């Protein structure tokens, strides 16, 4: 992808943000899930991003001269959030324990919404980078045109 500069990093970022959006959607959907397939309460998941040096694109761009290095984002892992679960007094609930207390997931929907806004803005920004890079290349193609 060396024709349009910077597009590799942006593509990787779009991939990563897509994963994050998926995780946010899962969290919101399971905000009140008291029992999953193994019988445990759902625990909020979060993504960990990691920056990876983009070897192939560095080689192609000849960055050793200018010291420019391009890194891409990668989703390193999706880890459960270890904050304490919510406990609510609900004696009639099928999953209530002996004291009538139900443990609910530690998903805070407002927090998830804010994360979602961040992810969506990040996606927009990356798409904007790709569009701008492409129009730059188009302008460059016009050099010498009468």
């Amino acid at each position, binding site marked *: *992808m*060396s*024709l*349009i500069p910077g*597009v590799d990093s942006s*593509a990787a970022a*779009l*991939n990563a943000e*897509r994963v994050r959006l998926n995780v946010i959607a899962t969290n919101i959907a399971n905000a009140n899930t008291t029992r999953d397939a193994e019988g445990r309460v759902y625990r909020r998941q979060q993504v960990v991003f990691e920056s990876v040096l983009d070897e192939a694109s560095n080689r*192609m761009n000849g960055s050793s001269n200018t010291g420019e290095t391009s890194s891409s984002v990668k989703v390193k892992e999706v880890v459960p959030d270890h904050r304490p679960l919510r406990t609510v007094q609900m004696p009639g609930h099928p999953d209530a324990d002996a004291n009538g207390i139900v443990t609910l997931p530690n998903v805070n929907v407002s927090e998830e919404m804010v994360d979602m806004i961040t992810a969506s803005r990040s996606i927009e920004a990356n*798409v904007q980078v*790709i569009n701008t890079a*492409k129009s730059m*290349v*188009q302008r460059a*193609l016009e050099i*010498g*045109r009468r």
Partner: protein
Amino acid sequence: MSIAPIASQVTQVGGWNQLPGAQSPVTKTPGSGVSFEQALSNQMGSASGGGVQNTLTSAYGSHTSSSFFGRIVEDVQMSQLNARKQVDGLMKGDGTQLHNVMISMEEASTSFQLMVEMRNKVVESLQELMRMQI
């Protein structure tokens, strides 16, 4: 698709191999063309007889044409095939992401425009040459 990696990976240079179905490149003046190819192959340290299929590699795999423009046309062809393949993959749901598909389509269209501009430049310089008075 940039010119330098293509040129730097010439391993064999054969005779003029007309790309089937493609327009003949405008710079097809056998005298100068062969000498350019010879110079390139000498520089790369390997030369072979005419008519041998050469294996140039670029980002898209190996080429079968020995002419400069033939290789570029093949590159453009391959980037367009790649874009079409990704669209098919997206439709079939094999895990291709939409933004990757869009990016490869943009890449294909940009490399096509680059090829057109190169052709224009070459045509223009040929016309300049024709206009020269003896």
